[in-house]
């Protein structure tokens, strides 16, 4: 896999010393084989991070691999139900759902070529049963949970826990996701790539052309939420909050999102959101195909306020993206969002439709305050949520599995 941007290109963003330190660290993992396995190669935050991370690990001398399990429509319907249930949403889950999950797991166990290198790195629940093969494969197994499991449905969690306890370590994105487990648990926040199409600087001409393409008014303040069309992202709640603001301020709302191949529910949510928005010409629902990163970037940059009113959130990379662009953000105080936004310092947190509406109004009417929040947010992301920090954490995670104690000296 070719690196889109070699490490050296990150120097102007994070400084040469940080790159130097990464090379120093990577000397200890040189030649190690790390096999990453997840359920989709496109769409969603996990695939996006792996696409960036694998080439950089390879540049640092790690033999990083990435494989994707196979599954049919039935399997993805079940894993979507699991996903919602782990987030605490009510779901009807029957024995047949567990059977479908296990059958696909069996098929993947037979088809997946597992390496016998240092680490097998499993992402999210879909490929979790592969750990059954651990005796004949990698030395250490890690389960990386990208989901908010602070209040999981006990039936689904207990089913998965039998597998999780057989890993060497689990990784969560926020402290509140931690669960009683017999294995070590690490805290690693995800990250964004500042050089990717989704986050790099754009010319104002390009931004204007995107606004034109989607028939958005460049003169009207834009409130934007970028996310998949998913109930947990509460698009209907965003519209409700916007309408409370719209009564007093002439502005427009953009709900923009792509579709992920492992998310069959999104078509239904998109239709309901369109129906709800139909009466207001200043509400724009944009179903943007996966991969239109430059357009998403332009929409975020053109926004006066970025919103992320999720009911549950693993980490909320769209929040990270907006903060990196120096945008004032209004977001729900859930999951990993609270690691990114310190209320009234690097953004505004909300817990209800009314709270969101109030915060949006406050930011639209106080541009100096909004600017200051945006600046603080950008610095916080620079120091804690860029890809290079994530890369460092993964290397430390691999090393930690092969060393005892709280202080490891080299």
């Amino acid at each position, binding site marked *: 896999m070719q690196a889109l941007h070699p490490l050296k290109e990150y120097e102007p963003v994070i400084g040469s010393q940080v790159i130097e330190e990464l090379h120093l660290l990577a000397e200890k993992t040189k030649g190690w084989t790390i096999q990453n396995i997840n359920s989709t190669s496109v769409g969603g935050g996990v695939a996006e991070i792996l696409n960036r991370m694998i080439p950089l690990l390879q540049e640092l001398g790690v033999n990083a691999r990435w494989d994707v399990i196979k599954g049919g429509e039935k399997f993805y319907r079940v894993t979507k139900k699991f996903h919602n249930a782990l987030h605490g949403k009510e779901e009807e889950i029957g024995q047949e759902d567990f059977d479908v999950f296990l059958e696909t797991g069996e098929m993947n166990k037979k088809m997946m070529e597992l390496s016998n290198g240092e680490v097998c790195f499993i992402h999210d629940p879909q490929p979790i049963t592969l750990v059954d093969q651990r005796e004949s494969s990698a030395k250490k197994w890690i389960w990386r949970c990208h989901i908010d499991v602070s209040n999981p449905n006990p039936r689904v969690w207990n089913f998965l826990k039998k597998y999780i306890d057989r890993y060497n370590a689990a990784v969560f994105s926020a402290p509140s996701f*931690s669960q009683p487990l017999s294995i070590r648990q690490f*805290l690693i926040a995800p990250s964004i790539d500042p050089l990717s199409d989704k986050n790099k600087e754009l010319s104002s001409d390009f931004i204007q052309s995107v606004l034109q393409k989607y028939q958005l008014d460049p003169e009207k303040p834009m409130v934007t939420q970028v996310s998949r069309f998913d109930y947990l992202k509460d698009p209907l709640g965003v519209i409700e909050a916007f309408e409370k603001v719209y009564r007093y301020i002439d502005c427009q709302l953009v709900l923009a999102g792509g579709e992920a191949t492992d998310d069959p529910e999104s078509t239904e949510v998109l239709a309901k959101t369109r129906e709800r928005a139909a009466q207001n010409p200043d509400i724009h629902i944009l179903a943007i195909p996966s991969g239109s990163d430059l357009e998403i970037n332009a929409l975020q940059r053109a926004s006066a306020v970025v919103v992320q009113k999720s009911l549950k959130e693993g980490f909320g990379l769209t929040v990270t993206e907006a903060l990196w662009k120096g945008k004032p953000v209004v977001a729900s105080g859930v999951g990993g969002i609270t690691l990114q936004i310190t209320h009234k310092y690097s953004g505004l947190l909300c817990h209800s439709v009314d709270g969101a509406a109030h915060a949006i109004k406050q930011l639209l009417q106080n541009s100096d305050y909004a600017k200051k929040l945006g600046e603080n947010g950008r610095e916080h992301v620079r120091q804690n949520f860029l890809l290079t920090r994530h890369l460092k954490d993964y290397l430390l995670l691999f090393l930690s599995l092969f060393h005892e104690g709280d202080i490891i000296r080299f």
Partner: protein
Amino acid sequence: MNTPQTFQFFTHLQLPELTGLKARNLTELFEHVKTVSGSVIYYHTHHFLQQHQYLSPEPPNDFAYWVTEALNEIELGERLTSINTCEFSSIRALREKIAETIESFLAKSKRSLRESDEGREFHFIKACSFVFPTPYVVSSLAEFVEVLKKVTIHSIYFHMFEARLRLEKGTNDFSLWFETSLKEKELAKKIERLDPYTHTMEGLRGKMIQLIERRLKR
């Protein structure tokens, strides 16, 4: 390795490890503070130094921040905030002070304990530290200051904080080398007297460079 004349810069990287322990009120916080490993106390009193380098002043420890923000116990929050980490030469002593502060508040408090809202519990995290030698080895003050200008803040952090408190060397590595190898007693004292907890890491670097360059000009 350091010989008496040379100083090798090390760097320190940290991975947070979740303990699965949490507290919803002061009694639970107190019980865990007394029994968790020293690496947990260290994490909650030091991680902000590396994570929020642009902020100054910062909440000096997570316990104070949580007690104030999640429990709205302003008075105890203030007492925990004012614990001067600089005064302690071991994590053990720091833990005792934190526990004693919470305990005496609990003993005097007449009203019922406040509970944090769901989702705002205190989660205990442990610092898993990795210490690496860097290629930078110096043998004079002039060489030292040039390297000090280019090492990462993680390296400065290791020699100023980790060495003194977690490795219980009694002072920071820089002062120790200035005094024992370079016989620069006065400079060693000046660096030791800096309260590193009230500076950002970049601010601390700048201050040390200034002190050393002033000494070199004399």
